């Protein structure tokens, strides 16, 4: 028994099965996580190693290089970049997609284990994180406070940062700014010298005084008392009264030589949120974790923790990348509803009956929910790709139901009862329906096979369309006949659904169209050669349109976020930097009402660690701006960013700046990166600077900048080894002594309420701020003599690179640029010609990195996919029609769909990018469907004995409506996608534009060219047959 007769005979089973499917789909949808794209973050692992006190060059030689040599053998490694800067070596390993990061990180730990004993002694254990420090954090939080400001960092670190770190998927939480309490013992070196004491002695005494010690047990009477000696400071004031020595028989107290302050640590940075002092926290996710889920959990945790914080602390959100994702996805869902309404209207327009329309439209929810079931069980997310796949599928899932229902109606009109018409009507078209589904599968299933970045996109798209289309065919063969048997009644051929007048009008219009098309066909068939040649010329001419169309990688969306980095003259003091920062803040507040949150960060953070910007210094300012949502402002984020660029040029003290807008959460960094490889700093610097100068003159580039910071000045103490030895000193002692006096010596901890605070001894500020102060530092030698630093060492000024970058074990630097108002492809071509004009030194080689590289890889994948789809469609059709030539005739539709795509992109000024190319590939599946309908029916008529020309004309006239109907359902489903201007629309628009352009042009041309080529082919066959007959007769 066939599926349709079972379905018709067991309507209740059929109904409950489909209700169960819908229920499961609804359940899956409820639990589907949301994301912007499928999991496309490249798998990253970072290895951070801290080597306190080492310079960038030392780090490179002693830490980064040996680590790199060992890490380079890790399997699946795609790229390895590293950055060596003062104190820190940061190595980032990028893996091939689909790499298991747990296995990779184990391998990395093994590799580190092997090399560790060859690394310098002073390094801290290398730490492995499953993210790239270049990734945009999921969220940036701010905290401001009034009375609690002094304790802000400590409170948040304990109560907020620790719980946040425990959220699954959070890679790390960085905290910037916020003062820390410390007990300072600021010594006056002259007094200390006078009492013949040193900082180290003082530290030793303080540490020795600040002790609690259990001293055994004492049995008194019946009780056993534990005995404890308590010497710890109960208050920081007590430090003042500690005796540190004797002078002339009188005790010397700490207060005699130093000033004890229970205060805040000296700040190297200042964080302001909307001009209020505070701090920033960054939440970074692990590679592959879900942004929206993490952001939601962070919000939940904030709500939980907020009441437990002191009431004056306000926690705010500087930015939250999940907001954009949620808005974009909810907008896309709205578009999906619109598409459904459009499809319903088209079906009603053509079918003209309410009940029939209802039966057809019901296949949409039934088949689309299966996509949610698939997504749920494969652990995928509801994202831009899955949702636009649904929009595409929506127009296609009704096709099978339409064909089945039309045939059932035809049978009823011929006099069958609904029940039988349902069974036998379905039987008649069942095979044809399955065959057309196979063609669609031939386009979409190969998409599930490709790998790499494009694979992550297309796997989902391919599966979703394949599954929903298959389910829609099953529904068309079971649910549709079952409902038809229950709901359809015998009625005259008149459509009455939209009222008699409208129906009559629609009928007239459609009949007019049919007749017009017949006339067109008639003429075309008469001049078949002219038409065919014309079409070929038209196609090749249309390819010329590709020249003015720009190319890009991914569309960039307005996500209301701007990040600004400003450099003032190197080495400028923090206080001066702050002044400029305040001025710029004022400009923002005055001229840019669109800005919602200004987060200002001046100077550099000592607590940022791995989050630290290698180029940050006391002279740098970083702004993070959040704008109000796009619907509440007129200017786009890109226009505002460009206006800010103009604004910043006015400040004479600004040496360099960059204003970045980020894409749709697709990695950080500039879109244009020219990588320059070479060992010699001077040669590569010179070349890069020259290239940067030339790039600045290229239209469309903004903020051209080198990744290697300008050399920064530093003071070096250069000992004379001979003299030092003469005094009985060695480098280790001397360097320690200097560090203790300038940076400070943490001698002990002051405990209060269970918290520990550093007790730091060092020279008072006025005794460590001139060169003379440093030269006058006294060092005690083993003989007990005090020796001044200047007696055995000199202090000199040097310049050194702040960071050394390497990629795949070669030194390199990048020249970066932002993009404004021009396509990636065009600017790249100009940069390439600029490089060609320059003389490239022999030891240098150049490559394009960033988006350009990604784009080239992606485009190559897409081209391959396109060829594979076309080939498979051909194979399926060749077997379906048992012919080599039929598939060619049918696929005449494909080239013209590309002409249509180009035309649409040209008119709308859109770019050829990954998203519009996805649209182009989908088109292959959609447009061949049209010509299959046409060719199949022509074949049928020829089989029924018509002449080829009559068959072509008759088929054209009778198939015009089904072709228009399937085309219009898909086309109208795409219109909301192409025209929406909601938040995030920039990302999906290109796909809508491409499909609309390609489908409409291809349909119009298919309707003429396919019948023409069919006649040409038929004429050839007839001639061949005649020749064969003549030969047979002669013989």
């Amino acid at each position, binding site marked *: 028994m066939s599926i349709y007769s079972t379905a018709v005979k067991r309507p209740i089973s059929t109904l409950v099965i489909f209700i169960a499917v819908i229920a499961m789909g609804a359940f899956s949808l409820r639990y589907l996580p949301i994301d912007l794209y499928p999991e496309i973050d490249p798998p990253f692992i970072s290895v951070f190693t801290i080597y306190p006190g080492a310079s960038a060059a030392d780090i490179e030689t002693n830490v980064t290089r040996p680590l790199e040599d060992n890490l380079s053998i890790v399997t699946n490694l795609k790229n390895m970049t590293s950055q060596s800067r003062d104190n820190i070596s940061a190595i980032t390993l990028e893996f091939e997609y689909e790499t298991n990061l747990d296995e990779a990180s184990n391998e990395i730990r093994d590799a580190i284990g092997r090399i560790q004993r060859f690394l310098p002694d002073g390094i801290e254990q290398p730490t492995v994180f499953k993210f790239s420090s270049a990734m945009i954090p999921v969220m940036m939080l701010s905290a401001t406070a009034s009375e609690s400001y002094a304790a802000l960092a400590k409170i948040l670190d304990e109560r907020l940062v620790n719980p946040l770190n425990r959220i699954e998927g959070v890679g790390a939480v960085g905290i910037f700014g916020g003062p820390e309490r410390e007990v300072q013992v600021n010594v006056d070196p002259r007094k200390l010298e006078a009492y013949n004491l040193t900082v180290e002695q003082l530290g030793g005494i303080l540490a020795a005084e600040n002790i609690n010690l259990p001293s055994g047990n004492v049995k008194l009477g019946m009780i056993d008392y534990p005995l404890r000696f308590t010497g710890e400071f109960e208050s920081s004031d007590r430090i003042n009264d500690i005796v540190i020595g004797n002078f002339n028989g009188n005790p010397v107290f700490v207060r005699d030589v130093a000033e004890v302050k229970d205060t805040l640590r000296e700040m190297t940075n200042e964080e302001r949120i909307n001009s209020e002092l505070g701090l920033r926290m960054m939440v970074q996710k692990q590679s592959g974790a879900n942004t929206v889920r993490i952001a939601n959990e962070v919000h939940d945790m904030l709500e939980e923790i907020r009441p437990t914080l002191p009431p004056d602390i306000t926690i705010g959100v500087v930015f939250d990348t999940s907001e954009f994702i949620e808005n974009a996805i909810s907008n896309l869902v709205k578009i999906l509803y619109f598409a459904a309404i459009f499809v319903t209207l088209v079906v009603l327009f053509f079918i003209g009956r309410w009940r029939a329309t209802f039966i057809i439209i019901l296949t949409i929810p039934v088949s689309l929910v299966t996509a949610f079931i698939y997504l749920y069980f494969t652990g995928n997310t509801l994202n831009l790709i899955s949702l636009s796949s649904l929009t595409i599928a929506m127009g296609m899932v009704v096709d099978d139901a339409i064909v089945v229902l039309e045939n059932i109606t035809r*049978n009823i009109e011929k*006099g*069958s009862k609904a029940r039988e018409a349902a069974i*036998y009507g379905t*039987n008649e*078209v069942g*095979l*044809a329906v399955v065959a057309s589904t196979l063609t669609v599968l031939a386009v979409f299933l190969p998409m599930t096979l490709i790998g790499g970045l494009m694979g992550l996109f297309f796997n989902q798209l391919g599966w979703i369309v394949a599954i929903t289309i298959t389910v829609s065919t099953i529904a068309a063969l079971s649910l549709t006949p079952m409902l038809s048997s229950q709901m359809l009644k015998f009625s005259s051929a008149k459509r009455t659904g939209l009222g008699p007048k409208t129906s009559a009008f629609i009928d007239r219009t459609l009949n007019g169209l049919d007749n017009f098309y017949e006339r067109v066909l008639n003429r075309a068939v008469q001049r078949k050669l002219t038409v065919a040649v014309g079409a070929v010329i038209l196609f090749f001419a249309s390819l010329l349109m590709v020249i003015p169309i720009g190319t890009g990688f991914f569309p960039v969306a307005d996500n209301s976020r701007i990040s600004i980095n400003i450099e003032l003259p190197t080495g400028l003091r923090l206080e001066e930097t702050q002044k400029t920062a305040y001025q710029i803040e004022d400009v923002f507040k005055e001229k840019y009402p669109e800005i919602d949150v200004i987060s200002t960060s001046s100077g550099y953070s000592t607590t940022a660690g791995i989050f630290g910007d290698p180029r940050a210094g006391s002279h740098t300012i970083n702004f993070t701006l959040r704008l109000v949502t796009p619907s509440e402002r007129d200017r786009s984020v890109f226009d505002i960013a460009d206006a800010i660029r103009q604004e910043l040029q006015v400040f004479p003290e600004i040496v360099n700046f960059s204003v970045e807008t980020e894409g749709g959460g697709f990695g950080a960094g500039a879109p244009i990166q020219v990588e320059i490889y070479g060992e010699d700093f001077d040669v590569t610097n010179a070349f890069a600077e020259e290239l940067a100068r030339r790039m600045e003159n290229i239209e469309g580039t903004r903020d051209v900048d080198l990744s290697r910071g300008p050399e920064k000045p530093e003071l070096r103490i250069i000992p004379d080894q001979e003299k030092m030895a003469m005094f009985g000193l060695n480098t280790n002692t001397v360097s320690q002594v200097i560090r203790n006096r300038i940076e400070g010596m943490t001698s002990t901890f002051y405990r209060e309420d269970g918290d520990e605070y550093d007790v730091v001894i060092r020279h008072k500020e006025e005794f460590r701020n001139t060169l003379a102060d440093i030269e006058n530092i006294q060092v005690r030698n083993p003989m007990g003599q005090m020796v001044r630093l200047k007696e055995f060492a000199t202090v000199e000024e040097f310049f050194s690179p702040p960071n050394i970058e390497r990629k795949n074990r070669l030194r390199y630097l990048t020249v970066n640029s932002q993009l404004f108002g021009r396509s990636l492809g065009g600017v790249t071509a100009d940069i390439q010609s600029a490089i060609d004009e320059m003389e490239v030194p022999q030891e240098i080689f150049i490559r394009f990195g960033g988006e350009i590289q990604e784009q080239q890889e992606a485009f190559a994948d897409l081209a391959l996919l396109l060829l594979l789809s076309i080939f498979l469609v051909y194979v399926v059709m060749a077997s379906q029609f048992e012919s080599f030539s039929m598939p060619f005739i049918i696929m005449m539709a494909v080239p013209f769909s590309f002409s249509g795509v180009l035309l649409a992109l040209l008119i709308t000024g859109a770019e050829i990018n990954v998203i519009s190319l996805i649209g182009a590939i989908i088109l292959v599946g959609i447009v061949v469907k049209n010509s299959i309908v046409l060719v199949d029916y022509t074949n*049928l008529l020829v*089989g029924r004995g018509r002449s080829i020309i009559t068959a072509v004309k008759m088929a054209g006239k009778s198939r015009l409506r089904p072709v228009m109907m399937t085309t219009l359902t898909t086309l109208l489903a795409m219109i909301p996608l192409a025209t929406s201007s909601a938040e995030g629309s920039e990302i999906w628009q290109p796909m809508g534009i491409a499909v609309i352009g390609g489908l409409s042009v291809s349909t119009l041309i298919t309707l003429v060219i396919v019948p023409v080529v069919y006649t040409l082919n038929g004429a050839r066959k007839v001639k061949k047959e005649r020749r064969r007959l003549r030969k047979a007769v002669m013989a």
Partner: protein
Amino acid sequence: MKAVFIVYNQALTERVDEMLNRLNVRGFTQWKDVMGRGSETGEPHMGTHTWPAMNSATMCMVDDTMAVKLLERVKKLNETAELQGIRAFVWDIEGTV
């Protein structure tokens, strides 16, 4: 005794069955999915892609009066759904076991 051979578009199966029930014709032989083509009018019913429809055939042995009634009913049925196609043929039975 007459043999009545009714051959019809399978979409009419239920109505033919109902007709036989109404007339109390108990015995019959039925073939499903048979091919056929009318001599003058009517689409071929071949079960192919070109001619997708199929026929069913029912043969019943009835007495002479019933044969007339059956033919009348078939004629009526044909008039209500002329496009579907139903034909009946009658011939004599010379003996049964």
